[in-house]
């Protein structure tokens, strides 16, 4: 790892270990990645790694998956930046997310080689992102309310919780609507996602 860091800086040690774990997973797969591999990759001592990750190997794997999910949502937020309204935001967001999932080489490889191990972690770790998606959507809903665009009775906080659940669900599974078809995706966004939230 090129990034230099000292053990007196807990944040960067944490980051360094997580990135090293991810590098090991990419090289060896999840089943074969050991704490010793992460020691070698990061150049940190076994003791230091256990001090930061007392759960050992399981915690390292979990944190590496959580870190990649976090990175994914940062890129997603970047991509939808500057959308004119909620419809465009969700439309572009779902399009980007589906494509990013499909093009994530390591993810696709591991879905084939060790699906059980990966999918268990993806499912538990990704649901932890719900509050972040909701927090991201909230200001957009509040802006829509200020503009008089929300249906009567819609509470922005409640609506952001509901929308975050659907966004995550559609990223994970396509369903009957073809999300790669722009017209169908737009129709889904205006119906399934927003018909109960925005005024017709």
């Amino acid at each position: 790892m090129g990034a230099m860091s000292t053990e007196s800086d807990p944040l960067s040690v944490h980051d360094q270990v997580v990135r090293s774990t991810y590098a090991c997973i990419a090289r060896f797969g999840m089943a074969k990645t050991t704490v010793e591999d992460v020691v070698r990759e990061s150049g940190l001592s076994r003791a230091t790694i256990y001090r930061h990750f007392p759960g050992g190997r399981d915690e390292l794997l979990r944190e590496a998956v959580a870190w990649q999910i976090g990175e994914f949502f940062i890129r997603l937020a970047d991509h939808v930046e500057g959308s004119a309204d909620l419809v465009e935001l969700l439309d572009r967001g779902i399009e980007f997310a589906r494509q990013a999932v499909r093009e994530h080489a390591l993810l696709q490889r591991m879905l084939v080689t060790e699906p059980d191990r990966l999918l268990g972690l993806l499912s538990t770790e990704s649901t932890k992102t719900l509050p972040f998606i909701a927090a991201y959507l909230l200001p957009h809903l509040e802006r829509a309310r200020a503009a008089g665009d929300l249906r009567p009775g819609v509470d922005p906080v409640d609506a952001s919780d509901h929308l975050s659940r659907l966004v995550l669900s559609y990223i994970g599974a396509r369903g009957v609507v073809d999300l790669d078809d722009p017209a169908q995706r737009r129709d889904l966004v205006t119906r399934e996602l927003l018909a109960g939230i925005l005024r017709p």
Partner: protein
Amino acid sequence: MTPEASPDVRARLLDATFVCLARVGIAKTSVDDIAREAGISRATLYRHFGGKAELLEALGQRELTRLDAVFAAAVQDCATVGAACSVLVVEGAEFLLDHPVLGTILAIEPTAITPLLSLGHADAFLTAAAALVAPHLAAHVDDDAARLRGAELLVRITLSHLQSPNPQRSITDPQVAQAIVDQYIVPGFVGKSAIERIQA
């Protein structure tokens, strides 16, 4: 017909499979355990089922049929599409939450189930679940495609709330389910003309 060849041998074996799975989960249940629990010989068991995988498959089918009957009874007296959607959400969530076998599996071997809800596998699961729910909306929604999309939306929202419950609002509370359905789901799937018809 000998007593052991009677049709209820199958039922007894499936009952026994259910009991064993609820007690110790999938990995620790053997064909011998199931035969012993049912009070039926190994040889007779193998005359009815090819092995453990077949028993699990048949039990899964039987549980789906049971859920289907629960849904049918629940929607019978529903006067509106909103009422039907809301009882389907509550009954579906309670069926899954209170299910003894699912409870045991989630507690001791969650990776047997969580992949169903994640990337890649979730599509097949969603499609099957939506197909199970959709016919129960037939009394209120004429259009086949709209019914399937609506059923899928109900499944997505129910599973999301089961995976990551909203601490303030439990999906098994009929008032909460009704509010979510009325606010977000009914306008989302019936289509604009149908919404106008409902509001008129």
